[in-house]
């Protein structure tokens, strides 16, 4: 049965235009073809390659329909409709290739001789598959050759096409059954060279027969020593040396004029598409298919190497290894055949690693493998490859084109996806960041660069700082607020990755050996240094951006991670935010900032209490000691916050005591109240709407009337408005403060 692949949407559209189509509810359609009585069932599986938008798809379908039905009258030379449809087909074909079904239809058209020679030629020239050609179509096309409806030149073109696209035909068994037919076509002098080439590709050992050898020798006697005949003869001789006694020249020259040149670029494009669609499973395939035929001579067309199992070096030790030997060895599973996860599991002990390690980046199955095999030389190979590739492809090292920068971004995307998949950074990327950040403009591939940054493995921060973070700081201070926010975002991710690694690591080791103890301290030190660094960046950034709320959000996002390290990750660390961030948030005009601040304060509180408890329990073997300064600092923040929001006695206690005279000088009447939950500039609107809700008929509202009982109602109102952070903070702190 023949299938036509088409998206459901496109199909329904087509049906509106083409009333010969009928749609059955199951969206399968049955159509009676006038030419033969065979019923063709057309289904519509979803085609993954269809990026073509509906319009193009529609017009392609119309064109196919047109060609299939054939012209109503004999087309005149300049038939506009014909021309339009031809153009459509050509455009689609050269852009994204044709589906096997489209090729099937068009081959039929071209070889049945419905149209003139020029049309046939044009159709044949654009028979470019998206990924493959079905064997059936070829067999059907060959059957047209028997009825001689098409001209000699069309036949030649067809053979050339067959040779060029030979690798894309999905099966070849049936075509091989037609061997005798092709062989008979050798008689035709014009076809002979092309048929020879086809036979050269098609011949198997069992095709070599004495009568064919005789025929070939006859032909050679008649036509002279033609290179194409010699090619076929030498192939025959390779298969059956006993059958051919004539000597063939040892020196090889090019046997066939390149039949592919018509389709050279198209063939490359198809190969590339196939290469990318190869990796399984689909959702994890990386790197979009784009290619650049002018690309360096040195490497294959894509930056990452093609997956090839590496049999060379291993097999080389053996003395005699002939081609057949090499082909017959089946001890280990070649990577080309590794298509699914179960296959990987079954063959994990005898997997041949790729000859070029860089190819694993594009293959999720092999990434699984890399993930569990900690082979040092495997990692070294990947390291070297990645290192050099990044260095060579990096676009801010040299002047270059848009194409290149896109390619580089794609490479980085591939790497980042692999890193996310492995949940681990590559050393080469870290090295790349060190080497390239001094030259980076902060714009080029920004998101990729910053993502790479977030995958740097845990290591000594003080060592990394001069190499990376000092440069980053320079860029940070001199760039826009958006850049600042994205840097903070990726630093947050970096922190998160570090915390995950560290917490996983600690819990794997129940007994702490002494060297690890040191490393734990060292790594905790690193984390705290990272947090201090971000604190420093943020404080200055807030000043530069005049306390932008937007920026403050990103900063507080970072501290949301920081405040919960002790409890969430079970790591002995509590680092507070610097005063600059605390006060900016406390005095912010934005409610959500105040809410976020309250949430963070609440979490800090819990973490500190947990840490204190742990300290009491493990007095002897103190994992870490919080400096009393941290506690003091927190208490100060807490009292300040309570003083402002709750007790209306702002800045009376703590480290930063502000002289009341100074506050009076601001000429704010009732300055004491002006930062409490009712009067706080970010909550004022809540207070007003609360009062309006309470008594909407009153003309004037007195905000100061929210006191005592009403105060508590007001609190409930605030909490119901989604200020969860504030709720946590108040419930937690006020309770405790009243107790103490």
């Amino acid at each position, binding site marked *: 049965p023949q299938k036509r692949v088409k998206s459901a949407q496109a199909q329904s559209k087509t049906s509106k235009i083409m009333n010969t189509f009928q749609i059955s509810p199951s969206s399968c359609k049955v159509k009676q073809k006038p030419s033969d009585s065979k019923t063709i069932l057309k289904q519509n599986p979803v085609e993954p390659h269809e990026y073509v938008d509906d319009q193009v798809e529609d017009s392609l379908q119309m064109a196919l329909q047109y060609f299939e039905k054939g012209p109503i009258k004999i087309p005149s030379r300049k038939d506009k409709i014909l021309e339009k449809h031809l153009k459509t087909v050509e455009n689609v074909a050269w852009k994204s290739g044709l589906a096997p079904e489209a090729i099937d239809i068009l081959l039929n058209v071209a070889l049945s001789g419905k149209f003139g020679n020029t049309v046939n030629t044009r159709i044949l020239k654009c028979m470019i598959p998206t990924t493959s050609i079905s064997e059936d179509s070829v067999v059907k096309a060959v059957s047209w050759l028997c009825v001689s409806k098409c001209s000699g030149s069309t036949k030649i073109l067809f053979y050339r096409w067959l040779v060029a696209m030979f690798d894309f035909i999905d099966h070849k068994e049936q075509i091989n059954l037609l061997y005798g037919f092709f062989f008979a076509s050798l008689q035709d002098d014009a076809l002979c060279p092309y048929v020879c080439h086809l036979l050269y590709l098609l011949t198997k050992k069992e095709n070599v027969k004495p009568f064919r050898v005789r025929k070939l020798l006859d032909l050679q006697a008649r036509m002279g020593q033609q290179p194409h005949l010699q090619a076929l003869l030498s192939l025959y001789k390779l298969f059956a040396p006993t059958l051919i006694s004539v000597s063939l020249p040892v020196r090889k020259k090019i046997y066939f004029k390149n039949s592919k040149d018509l389709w050279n670029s198209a063939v490359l494009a198809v190969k590339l598409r196939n290469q990318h669609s190869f990796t399984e499973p689909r959702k994890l395939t990386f790197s979009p298919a784009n290619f650049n035929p002018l690309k360096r001579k040195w490497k294959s067309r894509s930056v990452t190497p093609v997956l090839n199992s590496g049999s060379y070096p291993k097999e080389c030790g053996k003395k005699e290894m002939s081609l057949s030997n090499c082909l017959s060895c089946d001890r280990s599973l070649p990577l080309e055949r590794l298509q699914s996860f179960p296959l990987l599991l079954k063959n994990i002990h005898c997997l041949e690693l790729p000859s070029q390690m860089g190819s694993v980046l594009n293959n999720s199955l092999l990434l699984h493998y890399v993930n569990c095999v900690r082979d040092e030389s495997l990692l070294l190979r990947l390291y070297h490859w990645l290192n*050099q590739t990044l260095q060579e492809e990096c676009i801010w090292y040299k002047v270059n084109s848009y194409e290149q920068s896109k390619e580089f971004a794609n490479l980085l995307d591939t790497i980042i996806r692999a890193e996310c998949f492995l949940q681990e950074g590559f050393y080469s990327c870290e090295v790349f960041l060190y080497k390239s950040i001094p030259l980076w403009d902060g714009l080029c591939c920004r998101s990729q660069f910053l993502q790479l940054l977030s995958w740097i493995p845990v290591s000594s921060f003080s060592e990394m700082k001069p190499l990376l973070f000092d440069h980053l700081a320079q860029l940070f201070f001199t760039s826009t607020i958006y850049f600042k926010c994205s840097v903070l975002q990726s630093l947050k991710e970096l922190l998160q990755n570090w915390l995950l690694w560290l917490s996983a690591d600690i819990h794997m080791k129940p007994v702490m050996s002494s060297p690890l103890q040191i490393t734990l301290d060292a790594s905790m030190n690193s984390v705290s240094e990272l947090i201090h660094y971000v604190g420093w960046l943020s404080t200055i950034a807030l000043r530069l951006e005049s306390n932008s709320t937007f920026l403050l959000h990103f900063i507080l996002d970072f501290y949301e991670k920081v405040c919960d390290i002790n409890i969430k990750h079970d790591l002995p660390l509590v680092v507070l935010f610097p005063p600059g961030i605390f006060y900016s948030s406390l005095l912010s005009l934005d409610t959500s900032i105040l809410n976020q601040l309250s949430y963070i304060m609440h979490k800090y509180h819990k973490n500190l209490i947990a840490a204190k408890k742990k300290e009491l329990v493990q007095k002897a073997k103190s994992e870490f000691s919080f400096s009393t300064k941290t506690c003091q600092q927190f208490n100060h923040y807490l009292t300040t916050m309570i003083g402002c929001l709750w007790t209306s006695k702002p800045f009376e206690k703590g480290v930063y005591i502000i002289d009341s005279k100074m506050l009076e000088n601001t000429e704010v009447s009732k300055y004491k109240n002006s930062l409490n939950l009712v009067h706080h500039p970010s909550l004022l609107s809540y207070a007003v709407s609360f009062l309006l809700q309470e008594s909407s008929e009153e003309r004037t509202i007195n905000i100061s009337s929210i006191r005592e009982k009403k105060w508590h109602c007001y609190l409930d109102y605030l909490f119901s408005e989604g200020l969860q952070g504030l709720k946590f903070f108040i419930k937690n702190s006020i309770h405790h403060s009243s107790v103490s």
Partner: protein
Amino acid sequence: MDTSDAPESTPRQSTTSSLTDYFIGTTPLQKRLESIRKQVSVLPTPPRRKIPQGSGLQENVDPQKVAFLLHKQWTLYSLTPLYKFSYANLKEYSRLLSAFIAAEKQKGLAVEVGEDFSIKVIFSTLLGMKGTQRDPEAFLVQILSKSQLPPQNREGKVLWTGWFCSIFGDSLLETVSEDFTCLPLFLANGAESNTAIIGTWFQKTFDCYFSPLTINAFNLSWLAAMWTACKMDHYVATTEFFWSVPCSPQSLDISYAIHPEDAKALWDSVHKTPGEITQEEVDLFMECLCSHFHRHFKIHLSATRLVRVSTSVASAHTDGKIKILCHKYLIGVLAYLTELAVFQVE
């Protein structure tokens, strides 16, 4: 807002040892990373070097082969360590590489390994071409065209030559395991298309990576100073510098030739520490040359770019082309180039 216990992706389980390794620095990769950190943080080249002395070649070196390497223009590449390369298999490599070249040249046809082709590939070691005993043996790859003359004078024309070497390449050695062979410097002479084919074969077979090795102006000045400092019995070429001025429509090249003895005299006047060259001396040497030029032509060469240096010892172009003239200092020149290659590979 983060609701405190949002699910986070679980980290990999197998990192257990990696963290410990990280801080103790046991694995080769860790060592490598550490050395790179040091490298990036300090100047790329050490501020002082030894002046090349004597021949430095090991005794078992084949003089014919060395002579073959001289007076040819080589294009430089850096090369990452070769994986599973074995000196015992050179013959096998010859066969495989010649089959590969044949296949590349006549795309689309089946080629049987070991069959007769019009070309011949020869792998041979360059015995003694090393700086220390730890350096792996250098080796040479040649492509000969097979003449159709009778076998006795079958020595065909050399179509392409390339060789791999490591002279004092210790620093790279320390950071790889024994599966690898470190020959960071690759020199090729012949058509670039051949270099591409052969390079591709090496990349596919030994999972290595070739990158063109260019020599920047900073390193060219070092080369100029070092080569001027070399003691020569007789000079075969003038000392010449090329400076390039980027201007449109065509860039302007300034050639600056000095009598080699004058150059040596200038060097001797700036040179202080015996047997060693320091960064200050190199800078001073170049400054003197430039100020001399400025006095005569009122052109500040320091504002232009040094692109080529040629002396009686060797000549080098910033594109990564080198020609070695003096047998005596072959090892010295290669040692510096190895250093550059190692730096690029790391």
